[in-house]
């Protein structure tokens, strides 16, 4: 066991982590942040995407101990007031999702990408989300949600 400290959604968290424990399992099991979903545990599906120090990261491929000292944002931290962030609201308005299992990773990936590429067009967004698998929607509604979020963000 290694004692680690990291900031998650703005709050300092300290706890013991077995060296082999993934960041995803640490978030889910130790911090009860079950919004981060595990869809493949081998870094392909993107459902477990969280933001670590400003970058979208697959929390199934990162060990908890590697996140020591980092700033982590999960789906639960996007709109701490209990509302919806711009991306979340746009995705609701666009009927982006169905079963919702890919949703947290897709939202985190979109938030991280739009943060760096506020003017992205459809093809760029498709490529940016191409590492996040959704099995329900055929992606169009998700892309529309991200485009709407980008448009609303630019309009501010």
């Amino acid at each position: 066991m290694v004692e680690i400290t990291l900031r998650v959604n703005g709050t300092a968290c300290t706890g013991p982590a077995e060296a082999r424990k993934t960041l995803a399992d640490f978030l889910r099991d130790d911090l009860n942040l079950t919004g981060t979903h595990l869809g493949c545990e081998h870094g392909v599906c993107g459902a477990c995407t969280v933001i670590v120090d400003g970058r979208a990261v697959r929390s199934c491929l990162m060990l908890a101990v590697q996140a020591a000292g980092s700033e982590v944002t999960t789906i639960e931290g996007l709109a701490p007031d209990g509302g919806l962030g711009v991306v979340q609201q746009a995705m609701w308005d666009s009927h982006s999702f169905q079963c919702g299992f890919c949703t947290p990773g897709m939202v985190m990936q979109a938030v991280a990408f739009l943060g760096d590429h506020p003017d992205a067009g459809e093809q760029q967004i498709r490529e940016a989300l191409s590492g996040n698998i959704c099995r329900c929607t055929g992606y169009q509604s998700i892309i529309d949600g991200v485009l709407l979020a980008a448009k609303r963000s630019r309009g501010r």
Partner: protein
Amino acid sequence: MAAIPAERYTGASIKRSEDPRILTGAGRYVDDIKLPGMLHAAFVRSPLAHARVLSVDASAARELPGIVAAFTGTDLEAMTVPGPDALMALLGGAGPTPEFTLLATDKVRFAGDPVAIVIAESRYLAEDGCELVDVEYDQLPPVTNASFALDPSSPPLFANLGDNIARPHSRNEFGDVPATFATADRVSDFRIDVHRHQNMPMEGRGCVASYDGGLGVITVYTATQSVHVSKIAVAMRLGMEQDKVRVLAGDIGGSFGLKIGASREELAVAAAARAVGRPVKWVEDRGENLTTSGQAREESFDVRAAVSNDGDLLGLDVNMVIDTGAYPGMGTMVPGIVEAMLPGPYKLAALGFESTAVTTNKASYVAYRGPWASETFVRERILDLIAKDLGLDPLEIRLRNAAPRTDPPAVMITGRPLAGVTTRESLERIAQLVDFPAFRRRQAEARAQGRYLGIGVATFIEAAPGPRSPEVPSGPMGTEPMRLRLEEDGIVTLFTGQMPHGQSHETTLAQIAADEFGVPFEQVRVVTGDTDVVPFGLTGGSRSATMAGGVALHGARQLKAKVIDVASQLMEASAQDLQITDGQVWVRGDPASAISVGEVARRAATGRFAPGLDANLEVEAAFDGGEGGWSGGSHCAIVEVDVETGIVTVERYVVAEDCGALINPAIVDGQIRGGVAQGIGAVLLERSAYDQDGNCQSATLMDYLVPTACDIPRIEIEHLETVPLDADVNFRGVGEGGMIVAPPTVVNAIEDALAPFGARIYEQHLPPARILELIAAADSGQ
């Protein structure tokens, strides 16, 4: 006239009630369940496809700190009541029942067959424990394909079956098959193959089971398409009375047919939880999901087609073989549905259909979105092959063969009336939406530049629910129950046996009930996923739109009548003069008289009424599908094939669909697009692959490829005006259609693109390597 609300929820793209929790990470999926003292399970699985189990030694695992228990297959049999697979028992499969144990006992039948279960303080430790379980195997020759399974010399998977035939060969004839073939201008033979592929929901299977020894009650939290089917399975296998089993489900991360009832692993977890007296969780990992949860399709069809020189498809004679994998289940039932649906919306006059289901050393067959879909693939593929032989256009041959809409309706040669089917309209709409002559010009120009574009069309119908017909007096899909209650705070609660896993029933059923009862949408709650409170039901077979939508409408109407009867006494007004709008009951023409429906409920709970008045504001409604009807439509794809790399790009995809009256257009379109995406994936990417030893080669998402955002184009959808058959309920199912018809649409387009090479395509899976083979074979004149 009093004011009537101008807008209706039904038919509008109301934003989903499910989304606020899903978008904030507050959804509750089975892996999010945590119970005090909860343990974790992992399974020891066979590395071999076919072997005798000589011994299983779990003693080393049991000694590892953190391991609470380890059970072998033999242990599990002693802890449970032997019997057949519960779903099979429920559905009443024909023929001898193969041996069925929760974990393998004397024999393993596919690579991944569970042999032991290890229960530990954490998932990590449970997997450590699995490493220490020592299993001795005596390898047997694997049966890895249907042709070997059909060979009487193949080693039988199940000793009590004696061979590898899961459902014996049968033949049925509809119409005069010999005469049709004897008099036809042409008879053509085709062999069509559909490959093995699978559901791959983002969330795999999983459950948490908790046994209360004091009450003798087991509670199972699971991901399932039917909590009641799961409950029956648990009760049967654990030898418990059904009222001692409670199954709960929350949010479910997709299924597409995979999660019907309780799997062997879930039953093993329930038995283990009872034995150890602590809650146990099991959530499969992606490797388990891809190799062991189940796979679909893998069917072959030897087809003879009787055709006129003008392009009339007169008769088909088909021999189908389905590879149902290791443990026969629903796969044995699929040929019967394929047979019934094979004529589709066409004037086919004769059908001979024979089929055999075999068992092989591969993961077991499970339902996958339109399990019978191969009927559409076979039919729509051979129509194009015939059209090519005769020099006909793909739209032309379909319009020529589509049954006209007549009164009384044309009847499929296999028996069902084609009432209200709009196949011709959908094909004509496709021709308007896609300028075929302009495409042909563009195609010719592109070919001159060495680029290969193709266009494909296919059409389908789905019995969702299917037409009412005299042969099935109980209705096309049986009966759908629903309990509805007006709560004292004015909330209308719907208790449904539907178990949504992406279909948005919390939204759609509330839309219908809100309109019919007369309350704001936000005032309707849809309760699902608890066997203690919801009626029996299943989400599957595209049944919910008609069946649950219909019972929501009829139930809300019944509940409203009851509320009005009570309000009539409270308000001293004639029931005929009362109406409910916007959550208020009021005397027509007198808005000042209004009282809220919650007020009616509160006073009903406490008030005294004249004898004979039923003031219990709850109804148990049922709906039999009404007059029913068909879902259907035509799809069109334009593709480009890169003949250097074999990569196929879907450039445009157009849908002309008739799924009856729309409840929520955005949700309907999502169902269609999702199905089309899976169909595109099935053709271009996905295959559950096995090597000759029966090892699954597609055990990761780097090997089992599913479409990404870059693989699926924008999908254009047009909804046709439907032909209403029922007085009230003309919502029809739309869950499976996209997946049923997209594969032939895309394959037809690819064959068209490869026309300059003379390619003829008889299969569904066309990854780049296969495209290059088709081109090379055509080049070499084969």
